[in-house]
């Protein structure tokens, strides 16, 4: 039996209507998150990872708009919900940790105020009880001296500490799904290791599902169960973490893995992906990766490749995927 899905996104399309033209930030993305799993959403800047996350919570900033698609959370379509109903879901059912811990906290309120605000918004508790819960959360995210630190203001805390607080705030109502948008990108490696370790433990303890958005292949390798690779607003490949790293079939996934310098191995020259990420106002026709792809054939420019299941649990959006699968890596350019 297939594991139960907690979130299923079908054909999500989010466009931004700017004066320069329509930016097709997310263009027909489908994905699913299963109960208790960590889904890694990987891609470079501008691939639509963050917009996907914002669309799930329906907090896409203007001039962005969700045009089409379905976001089914626990059997209900979030796009059909009213704003009031959404407010009951944000923070309580689905929580969000943003990339920049410094700007996600309000500088003029103490941490205690900001944490109790969320707790009191979603739970019927008094101020004192909320404060007690907040201190409890501080212990959960392993902050020393919670009774003192909770009265601090954001500027008194370091980056790693602020990210811990952002995690505590996200966890305050025991959400079933956590959207973590590049939670460690702004942190130093040793602090990043601490935060990743913490998130892994907490996920296990609280049994939630998580979408981890990152551009760092190293981070997803250690944390995610399954990986969803995105490029220019579309999904190119979905598979288990092991498959993505051992047997990547989409040329973009492969190139991405080869372009990353790996500390465990020294390579003489890094593989280059020629060119730059396309402009999403007028993205390339057909497969969006074809102008940069080493394996592109004439058809790639005209046909939009559908996401096809090549082997069990391994989906690839590339018209030559079958060929790659059968011939291994020795396919001619």
């Amino acid at each position, binding site marked *: 039996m297939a594991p139960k899905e907690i979130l299923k996104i079908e054909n999500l399309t989010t466009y931004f209507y700017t004066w320069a033209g329509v930016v097709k930030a997310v263009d027909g993305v489908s994905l699913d998150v299963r109960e208790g799993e960590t889904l890694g959403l990987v891609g470079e800047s501008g691939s639509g990872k963050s917009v996907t996350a914002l669309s799930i919570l329906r907090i896409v900033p203007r001039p962005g708009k969700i045009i089409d698609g379905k976001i089914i959370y626990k059997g209900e379509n979030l796009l059909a919900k009213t704003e009031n109903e959404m407010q009951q879901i944000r923070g309580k059912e689905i929580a969000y940790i943003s990339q920049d811990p410094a700007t996600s906290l309000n500088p003029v309120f103490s941490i205690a105020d900001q944490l109790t605000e969320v707790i009191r918004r979603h739970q019927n508790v008094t101020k004192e009880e909320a404060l007690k819960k907040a201190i409890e959360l501080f212990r959960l995210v392993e902050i020393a001296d919670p009774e003192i630190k909770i009265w601090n203001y954001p500027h008194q805390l370091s980056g*790693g500490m602020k990210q811990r607080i952002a995690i505590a705030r996200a966890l305050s109502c025991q959400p079933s799904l956590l959207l973590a948008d590049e939670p460690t990108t702004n942190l*130093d490696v040793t602090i990043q290791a601490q935060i990743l*370790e913490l998130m892994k433990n907490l996920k296990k303890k609280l049994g939630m599902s998580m979408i981890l958005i990152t551009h760092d292949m190293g981070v997803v390798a*250690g944390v995610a169960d399954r990986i969803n690779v995105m490029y220019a607003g579309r999904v190119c490949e979905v598979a288990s973490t092991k498959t993505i*790293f051992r047997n990547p079939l989409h040329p973009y996934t492969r190139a991405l893995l080869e372009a990353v310098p790996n500390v465990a191995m020294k390579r003489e*020259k890094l593989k*280059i992906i020629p060119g730059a*990420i396309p402009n999403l106002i007028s993205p390339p026709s057909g497969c969006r990766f074809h102008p940069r792809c080493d394996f592109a054939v004439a058809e790639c420019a005209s046909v939009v490749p559908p996401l096809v299941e090549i082997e069990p649990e391994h989906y690839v959006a590339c018209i030559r995927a079958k060929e790659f699968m059968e011939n291994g890596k020795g396919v001619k350019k």
Partner: protein
Amino acid sequence: MILEVKNLVKHYPLTSRGVFLKKEVGVVHAVDGVSFSVRKSETFGLVGESGCGKTSTARAVLYLDPPTSGEIYFEGQEIGRIFKSKNQQEILKLRRKMQYVFQNPYASLDPRMTVADIIMEPFVIHKHVPKEKWHARLYELLELVGLEDYHAERYPHEFSGGQRQRICIARALAVEPRLLIADEPVASLDVSVRAQILNLMQELQQKFGIAYLYISHDLSTVRHICHRVAVMYLGKFVEIAETSELFSSPLHPYTQALLSAIPVPDPENKRSRIVLPGEVPSPINPPKGCRFHPRCIYAKEYNCIENVPELVDVGNGHWVACNKVSG
């Protein structure tokens, strides 16, 4: 030896402003006695976490922020004397040989100048290229960094991050420097573009024999591009070694933790990860003894709270500042 730095110290005063007087209330010990040398056509890496003094070191080496004390020799000359003499001609001569590529290519290019103006500005300042050859040299430089001729008339906002970093590199190369200080040149770029810039830097080094002082917090790029690496913690070097030596047998507990903390893009690589407790202390009041002792598991055993470890040679050009190693 192209650059030799001896006992470099850079302190920034912390002042609180009164009505009339500035009062010094403390000192930020950004760099506290570092010594290193960069050989000809070598890439020397400076690694450490944010706030450990990497950029302060680089800026002090170029006299962008004159160091508090210490000696810097460039091609055998003590450059402090030259900068203090205020002899503009000598200073310009020196500046021509040492160039800087900044971390953020979005902020280090003048938005009102075209690429041609940006790259030819060094010719105006240094007057080392005769005027009739300016344009030929400009196109040569553009080609060198992988840009097209028609890019010359464009403005910086028309370029992507990777292309802007190429412009910055072209501008630095315009004066034919012997040493290029690259301060996190790829930190703000996407992975696929990062590889392009790193490869470009390697090619340029092979072609012109430029030495790089490469500053980064990202150990995986350091491993890729550097010949030798120094690891910095709170204003001091904890370890210097050849890159392969440092990555295969790190000796300092901080280096070990730093290396183990890097996420490896391989799901089956289950290394034991050393998670350091706590955070980097403030450089205003750095810990006594070994600066790493509050986060080190060996601190009690070797009494690191009192003993300041010296950087000692353990063979093979591998230097470590740790009481556990020196005994």
